């Protein structure tokens, strides 16, 4: 009897309409994301870190439905923990990506989340994998999320093989900034994670420190 029908935006799924990007260089990877989480027209979290650790040197970038993406990342984190204890050493990035792919393929009709898996392992160095809808493919760089559509041209034109770590970080920041300017569902601050054999470095770039372009 004491019923409160939920307001419209409560029943709308919380989406991480997003821009995510991962790029590999010789010796590691750089992952980047924006920080906006929206439910319909409302921004429910303006500082969410969408770069989720799967293991010490393997991270994934979340996009799509917030609940689906968070749950997938947590499940794979648990599975990788068990796997790395079983093999007695750090897991390969390909293993983490395969675990993510297995979940997205099996539940492809029910889930609507896309994770980009990137990291460093001893055997193959820095690697970036895209795992949308059950596909598994290694790419030199990958972009995802609603904001990625606006920057495909930019990344295709600007990417060069053999970029250094600093150049990759700058490339990621520029891409995120451009996408956040044009996509309504992306915004807030930029999170950058750099992974190489020495460790993992997390950085936050606040809104007013992002690079500006011709119209600002």
């Amino acid at each position, binding site marked *: 009897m*004491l019923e409160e029908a939920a307001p419209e935006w409560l029943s709308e799924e919380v989406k991480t309409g997003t821009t995510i990007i991962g790029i590999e260089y010789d010796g590691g990877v750089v992952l980047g994301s924006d920080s906006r989480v929206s439910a319909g027209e409302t921004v429910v979290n303006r500082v969410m870190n969408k770069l989720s650790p799967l293991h010490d040197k393997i991270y994934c970038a979340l996009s799509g439905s*917030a609940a689906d993406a968070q*749950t997938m990342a947590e499940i794979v984190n648990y599975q990788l923990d068990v796997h790395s204890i079983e093999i007695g050493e750090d897991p390969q990035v390909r293993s983490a990506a395969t675990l993510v792919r297995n979940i997205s393929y099996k539940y492809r009709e029910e889930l609507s989340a896309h994770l980009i898996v990137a990291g460093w392992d001893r055997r193959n160095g820095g690697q970036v994998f895209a795992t949308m809808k059950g596909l598994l493919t290694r790419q030199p760089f990958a972009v995802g999320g609603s904001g990625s559509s606006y920057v495909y041209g930019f990344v295709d034109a600007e990417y060069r093989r053999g970029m250094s770590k600093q150049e990759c970080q700058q490339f990621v920041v520029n891409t995120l900034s451009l996408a956040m300017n044009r996509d309504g569902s992306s915004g807030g601050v930029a999170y950058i994670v750099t992974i190489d054999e020495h460790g993992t470095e997390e950085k936050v770039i606040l809104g007013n420190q992002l690079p500006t372009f011709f119209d600002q």
Partner: protein
Amino acid sequence: MATLTAVRPAFGGFSFDNCKRNAVLEVEASKVGCSVPAARKTGTTICGVVFKDGVVLGADTRATEGMIVADKNCSKIHYISPNIYCCGAGTAADTEMTTQLISSNLELHSLSTGRLPRVATANRMLKQMLFRYQGYIGAALVLGGVDCNGPHLYSIYPHGSTDKLPYVTMGSGSLAAMAVFEDRYKPDMEEDAAKQLVRDAIAAGIFNDLGSGSNIDLCVITKSKVNYIRPHDEANKKGVRVTELEALKLTGDYKYKRGTTGVLTKAVTPIDLELLEESVQTMDTS
């Protein structure tokens, strides 16, 4: 010729007869040129803030049934464990049952580990249950508490996603409350400043959102104690109380002092009653 018809007893489960009726009504109404009335939105304002020594949770106290206030003073801050409380928005039954279930499981878990439960544990249990039901359990929660790792505050959405933040708001009045937080939140506030901030945020929701109203409940959780202040503030006072002694009377005072209305003329007519008959009826008290 007589025929035998067997009456089939009603099976258990849902009856969708009203859905069929509604569909027919909608078609009929549009034929005449009328439209079916739109669904009315109801709601709540709940919020939480992390301060220097703990967390402060706040909620309004109005429960609505359509356009009518069903309960003027319902309690939206639910107990999870001695150091963790949870505010609930959305479907009242869902928030009530979900928080009770997780509270019970958390108590068993705490007995098994022999430790005070952690807020992250409650968060995991809640999000995994809500995700399992794919959003059909309409519970939007603000979970706050203090454990061995300090004060924590989470917001949990019906589909199972969570955010860990220093200040959160939920419910239909959340935008009004968030506006107050974004303006005046500072990290490491004192307890009184935090209580005032939460009170003002809920008041903003109460005054600017139709679905929220009545009083403001607060729950202050620190390492040493929990202070459940209900009500903290009566945002809307009804009338003036007669006296403190008659505080049990929950209705307002509608008596006006003699002289409030000017008297023009006064005519007193005594009515004489004649005693016609007197009879005595014995009452049977056996």
